[in-house]
């Protein structure tokens, strides 16, 4: 029933790599390894994006997620010196609940997959390519207002991050003002 075409072989190998790196991220006891495995996961998902005709999103994934965000993560991990995670205590209620929820969702997905099998919709690898021009056209015409709002969100995030990490100076200034009184 399932004909193993080259496209399917590529998809299965990339998907296996994505799931394996996600599992490795989940169970790694070293935060740096977890971050690097997540970079691998983002890169494999970017490969899938390239495969299904989203080159802009794939490149944005690599530059924004695998590049910028994960470098920020690694920077904070090494700044705080929390590389090695301490062995956690006994298996609590949270772990049982999490295992239950996760297994239910995964089992449900596989069950639906086995029951329904081939869905009516299908992906054409390399087809329906949305090029950068089309994305830019949509962003600057139909989605102009949301696009402007994202710039505002980023501005607010930058100001918030600076304010949160500059606490000491503010605190010492408040202390000085109180000392004057």
């Amino acid at each position, binding site marked *: 029933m399932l004909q193993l*075409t080259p*496209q399917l072989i590529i*998809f299965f190998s990339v*998907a296996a790599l*994505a*799931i394996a790196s996600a599992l490795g*991220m*989940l169970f790694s006891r070293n935060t740096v390894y977890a971050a690097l495995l*997540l970079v691998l*996961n983002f890169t494999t998902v970017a490969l*899938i*994006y390239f495969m*299904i*005709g*989203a080159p*802009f*999103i794939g490149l*944005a*994934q690599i530059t*924004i*997620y695998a590049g*910028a*965000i994960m470098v*920020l*993560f690694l920077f*904070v*991990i090494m700044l*705080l010196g*929390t590389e090695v995670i301490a062995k956690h205590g006994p298996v609590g209620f*949270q*772990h049982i609940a*999490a295992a239950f*929820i*996760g297994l239910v*969702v995964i089992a*449900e*997905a596989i069950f*639906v*997959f086995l029951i*329904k099998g*081939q*869905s009516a919709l*299908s*992906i*054409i*690898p390399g*087809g*329906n390519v*949305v090029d950068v021009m089309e*994305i830019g056209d949509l*962003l600057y015409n139909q989605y102009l207002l949301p696009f402007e709002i*994202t710039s505002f*969100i*980023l501005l*607010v*995030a930058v100001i*918030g991050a600076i304010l*949160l*990490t500059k*606490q000491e100076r503010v605190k010492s200034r408040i202390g000085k003002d109180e000392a004057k009184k």
Partner: protein
Amino acid sequence: MNTIPMSYFLVLSAIMFSLGAIGVITRRNPLVIFMSLELMFNAANLTFVAFSNAFGNANGQIFVFFVMVVAAAEVAVGLALIVAIFRARGSIDIDLMSSMKN
């Protein structure tokens, strides 16, 4: 026809999303929790792009772009919060952040 059924992408996305959810619930290091959160964003993005390809409509990819922007902003603020908490308490264990309980 060299096509891949849509359900394969959805199952991959569901598995990645539930792995991220498990990570958010079980781990106690906020950095790992944030990474699991990114994994969940990633799974949702994969679904968006897959449907965008299946329907031949570019709007899904625009939404992925916006999700990425919001995720970047969220990570910047979240990591700044983690740094601030670490400075104030010297530890970032989630279970120890219960000072508002009493």
